[in-house]
């Protein structure tokens, strides 16, 4: 799915966090958005993923505006996955229940959990597993409906190097299977996995590299 953002402006109160941002994410690409903390990566990612309405400007998905997509919840469920810096698993649900929360096909849950190496943890709660396992469960939740594109905001921010690399490898694996990824991170290592790198500074895109 091709995503185009046109003239995106966003304010938090009086704070101007995105300034006239134009960007295109090609279908199936692995895009990294890098930049210092406060550069606007998370806000851009939230807007591109429909989780936040921009103050002005428009986001198009395969040429359609958000308004033309129909039910936004249905669109998100079928088309978009999101991985947060914190795992944000619901603490009173088991890992399996968290992943199955929005699953369109329940049988995909077990397969995905096995594939991500957390099958044996299905009945555990998030506070009963390690940080890396939690993030794997969060990734499984984002991937369970085989979305066209997964957005990830600092997905390795709370992980050690070994687990962080494991997450990038997972992204790469699913990217090769056709899922698009847009990952915001200040970790330069992400650049090694991405085919497009967008660099942000003070709410603006300052550079775009393509491999």
């Amino acid at each position, binding site marked *: 799915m091709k995503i185009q953002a046109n003239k995106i402006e966003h304010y938090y109160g009086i704070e101007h966090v995105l300034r006239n941002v134009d960007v295109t994410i090609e279908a199936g690409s692995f895009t990294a958005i890098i930049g210092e903390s406060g550069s606007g990566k998370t806000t851009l990612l*939230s807007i591109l*993923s429909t*989780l*936040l*309405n921009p103050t002005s400007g428009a986001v198009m998905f395969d040429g359609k505006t958000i308004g033309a997509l129909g*039910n936004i*919840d*249905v*669109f*998100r*469920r*079928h088309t*978009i*996955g*999101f991985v*947060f810096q*914190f795992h*944000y698993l*619901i*603490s*009173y*649900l088991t890992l399996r*229940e968290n992943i199955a*929360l*929005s699953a369109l096909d329940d049988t995909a849950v077990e397969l995905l959990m096995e594939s991500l190496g957390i099958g044996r943890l299905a009945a555990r709660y998030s506070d009963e597993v390690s940080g890396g396992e939690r993030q794997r469960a969060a990734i499984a*939740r*984002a991937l369970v*409906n085989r979305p066209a594109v997964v957005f990830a905001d600092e997905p390795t921010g709370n992980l050690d190097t070994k687990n962080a690399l494991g997450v990038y490898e997972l992204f790469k694996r699913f990217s090769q299977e056709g899922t698009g990824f847009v990952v915001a991170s200040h970790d330069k290592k992400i650049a090694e996995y991405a085919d497009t790198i967008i660099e942000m500074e003070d709410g603006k895109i300052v550079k775009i590299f393509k491999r």
Partner: protein
Amino acid sequence: MITPLKALRKNRFKTALIFISMSVSITAIFLISAISGGVVSMYSAMLKTDGDIIVTQKGIADTFFSDINRSMAEEISKMEGVREAGALILGAAPVEPLPIVGIYGVSENRFKSYTLTQGFTPKNGEVILGSKIYETLKHPKTIILSKQKFVVSGVFKSRIGFEDGGVVMNVHDAGVLFHKSASIFLVSLNDLAKSDSVVEKINTLNPDIEAKTTDSFIDSYNQFKIIKTSSDVIGAMAFLMGILGIVSMMSMVVNDRKTEFGIMRSIGLSSAVIIRKLLAETLIIALFSFAIALGVSLGVLELIEHADKFQGYINGEITFSLALKVFVVSIIMAMLGTLLPAIYAARIDPMTLIQRGGS
């Protein structure tokens, strides 16, 4: 399917607060309705005993103030279709050590309405006591009413709390005590279908009296209207307090769970799913609260009924229709109290919910 019980267990403290708030409100609605309904039904039952038609002083707001000439009772009793007419004086006076007791002066033919458990029907200078007051006064041989001594000739048992906690004497003695001839006449008929024509005849007897069928009297009696209105107002206040309590608690719950709801929205669960989830949680609490409130209310009413302090005057009853009404009110209260904060949360962007919710 998200299990609401799991979410409730996770938020134990707030669940407990909502549960307590809802239980108190429902109990208040139950008790107010049951007690006010009990007052009305006890008085109605008393009037309905052997009374198809009630005759009072015309235009009087309260039967306690009514004064009619009891000689008319004899005239009425001779009317076609009338089986019996009896005079009744309704009054209240202190009976040491009780500050106020219902006193009923009745004509001879009405003594049969009282089931004596001991002794005899009273003659002049004698009274019979309801079993409740007899126990409260610790089996007295005599009582003092308005500085006059009356011998207790018997004890009767009545399911009507007002009577069971009251004193019954003959209408002549009561007339002397309260300086009136009669408060009301209770007229029983041979054929209820003729009640309208008998009412019409009685009303032509004397311009100062007013006859009504008992049902019509009960429907139009001002004191009942006041009691019912007061009960409805207080019940509505309890309902509103309940809603406010739930809204404030649910606002706190929603505020605490913004991240959770933001995550749910971000993975494609609709606002309707989140609202349904919150409603399911509150409905579970409402069901438990209703059950507890019903149990507590039944217990409190039982205690009140047997408390000497109230002499059986407060005698609430929770009927099936009242329980059903309160059940519906409880569900509405839970739904309204939850919808406002739930709809508010559902309107916010998922990312804003997550950011406001913190980690």
